[in-house]
């Protein structure tokens, strides 16, 4: 069974002259244990796709299933809980809370989700892998763009979600870091059975992907 499945999904922003068809007839599946790459030019609808797959907003029409459950009509509270427990987001930019240190970003999750978060040992190992173990008492403004991005990845993984959705996770990383993060995503999928969906322009990530989709003007084509 697919962890995430979109059937016939459309998203229209605005009305009348301002109408934008951001997504047209999207059919998509992602399974656990796999890394899926979604590529495409700016404005293609990649972020829109991610917000709908991650229950941040609802499609104009069509169905979205997470773990086989239709989430089209769930309440704001239920979708909140879904995001907290099942989905980890790595957002395109500014995705850390500016007044919390890296460590406190994790603590915030502890305050609202008491169980099932990564334990200290796994977390330490993860931070080590991401190369930010020494930075946990720093505020986001004290980190470089790449360090912020890696901290955001750690935060998204902290609640131990089944699904990891990332928007441009390597935008401010150099080649060495891209390889490390790519390897980490692959490792998460293969060894921790996560479904990893990455939206990116970055061809350097292609070699870590099990599937690659190309988006263009709201349509999605499977390439690999």
């Amino acid at each position, binding site marked *: 069974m697919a962890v995430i499945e979109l059937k016939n999904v459309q998203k229209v922003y605005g009305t009348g002259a301002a109408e934008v068809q951001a997504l047209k007839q999207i059919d998509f599946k992602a399974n656990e244990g796999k890394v899926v790459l979604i590529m495409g030019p700016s404005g293609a609808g990649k972020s829109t796709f991610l917000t709908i797959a991650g229950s*941040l907003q609802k499609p104009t029409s069509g169905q979205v299933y997470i773990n086989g459950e239709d989430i089209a009509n769930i309440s704001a509270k239920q979708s909140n809980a879904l995001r*907290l427990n099942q*989905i980890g987001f790595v957002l395109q930019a500014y995705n850390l809370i500016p007044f919390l240190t890296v460590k406190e970003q994790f603590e915030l999750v502890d305050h609202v989700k008491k169980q099932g978060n990564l334990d200290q040992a796994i977390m330490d190992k993860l931070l080590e892998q991401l190369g930010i173990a020494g930075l946990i008492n720093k505020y986001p403004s004290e980190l470089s763009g790449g360090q912020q991005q890696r901290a955001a990845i750690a935060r998204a993984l902290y609640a131990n979600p089944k699904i990891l959705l990332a928007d441009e996770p390597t935008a401010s990383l150099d080649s060495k870091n891209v390889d490390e993060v790519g390897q980490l995503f692959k490792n998460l999928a293969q060894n921790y059975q996560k479904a990893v969906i990455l939206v990116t322009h970055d061809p350097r990530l292609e070699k870590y992907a099990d599937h690659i989709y190309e988006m263009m003007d709201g349509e999605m084509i499977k390439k690999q």
Partner: protein
Amino acid sequence: MFLAIKEIKREKLRYGLIILMIFLISYLIFILSSLAVGLASENTQAIESWDAKQVVLNKNANVSMSQSLLTKDDLSKTKLTKNEALLGQTPVVAKNSNRPQVSAQFIGVKKDQFIYDDQELIAGRKAKKDREVVVDQAFQTKGYKLGDKLELNGSANKYRIVGFVKNAKINIAPIIYGSLASWRKLRQGMPNIKASAIISRNANYSYNHANSKTYPIAQFIKKLPGYTAQNMTFQLMIGFLFVISLIIIAVFLYILTMQKMHNFAVMRAQGIPSRTLVAATVSQSVILVVVGVIIGLAAMWLTAKVLPAAVPMSFTPQIILSGTCGMLLTGIIGSLIPVRSILKVDPAKAIGE
């Protein structure tokens, strides 16, 4: 709480300024309230120290004791128990060549009645003869000493201070307690007058013969010259201060909240419930108000300590309690205004910006 405290810690300057403002407002509220209570009490101190419940005055005196004169005829039917006392009041200017002049109220009382009996002396003794007086402690702060002689309204007679009393002010003027006979002399040229008023500690006391009329003490206090106007002025100022602080707190929290919308969106995208975000905002404003008010209380306590006794300020527990509760309430109401916006945050806004 977690978010609220972390954010204040990180943004010390921003929140420090808000605390500074809350401190200044609450300090002002405490000062004005203390002044209002202090002044009100200088109007009524003496009346409260007598424990007066009813007062009999000349019905043509517009409920003013210093305007009232009761004659032998007016008082011909009185039966005075130990709860009633005759009293004569007249404004005087007290002079002594070595001391500053004092505008005061002369109050003549009878030695065998309760107003005389209940005088609370802080120094000296009670007046025993017609030429002896006990005076309010305000005279002491102006440099008067026991044994000083007072010339009242330029009369030839001199009155010797034999004691100082506590809480003896009426209508903001210090009282000079003397005998009823001396009062009659000060109101020279008025034949047959016996007193200005009968004061009773009995709430049911009533006497309405000839020109006499009985008034409940509340009505009497309300008619003290300037008393009601003064209280209303203060109440208006304090009320406005609360409204202003409500607006300031609300506007500031609103602006802060609007600036934080992106953070809220990110947290909502992470699955942090909006309840947590609302709780953070409300508890944050409670923390700010509590800290501001505590500093205000400390400043007020210091002010009350260093201010000269001549300033009529009375910083009572009631003021502390109602001022603190009032500010807290304002803070909570102010913080509830942006709640609607927080609940409406679109988590999708967090992505791709």
